[in-house]
């Protein structure tokens, strides 16, 4: 049996209820016990290979966008040496649980995605971003927690872009549905930071198939209905956290959950 630490409600309120992000919301609404292990108990787990690949690809695209922004565009060749250094050094901070012989394969895969993106991207090399990897936050109405987030890229005319690495090609409708919470959060944050609505959103999926490919999904501007839905999700999140309602939601996703072991030992707490 695992011991679930008792945490005073005041501490919970301060830690968890002061800020909310799309990641926290998605985690809470997919499995409350996973949320509890990750954000309340803060159980540390070594990063997975897939997570490291995703972060490394994000980092490389961030460098590429910044360079265009600063008027010093980079090509694939000039990013590669720094990518190699970053791949290694970022593991000093966040160790990765590699399986035997896995790391080089994953590194090649990650670089393959970056190389493909720089070749196939719909973004012209001379296009200047409005923002790159920017942290933003805003208050929400009705005493809800502050909303925080990091937007990958904002293209001219307020088009918010989010980069995704994925093992398989997403279906458009499902990709939009699965990312709705995140894009709505970004839309609200963009409006707060700029005083105007984002004109639309783009999901740039870098697919880890044998021959890497890019799938760009366009999503329309934020609607009032999506915002209402989002606020309702935040309200439900606040209610659940306040009540410490952290029950598991067994699903197919459990197979890849980092808290599988802890979850199987769970005995019904915390109370």
């Amino acid at each position, binding site marked *: 049996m695992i011991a679930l630490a008792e945490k005073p409600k005041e501490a919970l309120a301060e830690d968890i209820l002061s800020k909310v*992000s*799309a*990641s926290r919301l998605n985690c809470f609404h997919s499995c409350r016990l996973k949320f509890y292990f990750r954000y309340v108990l803060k159980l540390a787990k070594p990063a997975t290979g897939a997570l490291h690949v995703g972060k490394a690809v*994000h*980092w490389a695209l*961030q*460098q590429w966008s*910044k*360079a265009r*922004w*600063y*008027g010093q565009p*980079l090509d694939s060749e000039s990013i590669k*040496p*720094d990518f190699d*250094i*970053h791949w290694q*050094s*970022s593991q*000093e901070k966040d160790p990765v649980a590699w399986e035997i012989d896995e790391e080089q394969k994953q590194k090649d895969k990650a670089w393959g995605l970056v190389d493909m993106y720089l070749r196939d991207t719909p973004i012209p090399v001379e296009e*200047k971003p*409005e*923002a*790159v*990897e*920017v*942290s*933003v936050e*805003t*208050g*929400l*109405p*009705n005493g809800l927690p502050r909303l925080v*987030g*990091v937007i990958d890229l*904002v293209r001219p005319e307020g088009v918010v872009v989010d980069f995704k690495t994925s093992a398989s090609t997403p279906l458009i409708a499902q990709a939009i549905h699965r990312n709705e919470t995140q894009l709505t959060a970004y839309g*609200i944050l*963009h*409006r*707060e*930071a*700029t*005083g105007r609505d984002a004109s639309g959103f783009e999901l740039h999926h870098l697919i880890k198939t044998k021959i890497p490919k890019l799938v760009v999904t366009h999503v329309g501007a934020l*609607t*009032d*209905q999506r*915002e*209402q*839905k989002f*606020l*309702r999700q935040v*309200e439900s999140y606040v*209610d659940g956290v306040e009540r410490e309602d952290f029950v598991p939601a067994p699903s197919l996703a459990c197979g890849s959950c980092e808290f599988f072991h802890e979850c199987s030992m769970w005995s019904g707490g915390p109370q």
Partner: protein
Amino acid sequence: MIKIITNYSKRLGLPGYSSHQFSISCETELTNVSDVAAESARLYETLQQSVDEQIQTTGFVPGSDYGNGNGHVEPINRLKTHAIKTNGNGEGWHCSDKQRGLIVKLIADHDLEDVAEEMSQEMFNSSVKDLNKLQASGLIERILEEHAGKRSNQRARNGSNRYSNGGTR
């Protein structure tokens, strides 16, 4: 003197992603500790009954056309009002007060008045004062990277292993 403080609250879901909540708080004094259990039970029943009676009146509930220009748009308006209200500090700057303070400090500390203005024009075709929060964040990041010791990997090719961090999600 013994004081009992009670509160009964109920939140119910409504159509159109709405909910409403009502709570009643009550403070009462007792002279005998043995009355606590009975008095608590009585208060609970009374408060619950009162809340249940009142919460049946739902007031405005959004219809299916809510937010499409035909209905009441209060919650969304509140968000938008907030955005407009906090975007600008009334002194010619359009970023937040905190960002303005940091930009002014960086410019002063590193003697960057012309440089910062050039960067702003290059990145946004705007004057520093005209930058919104999103843009100001980008300018600050660049000043920090290029003039204040925080270097991204791209600019630290000569052996440094420090990297810019996009923040936590």
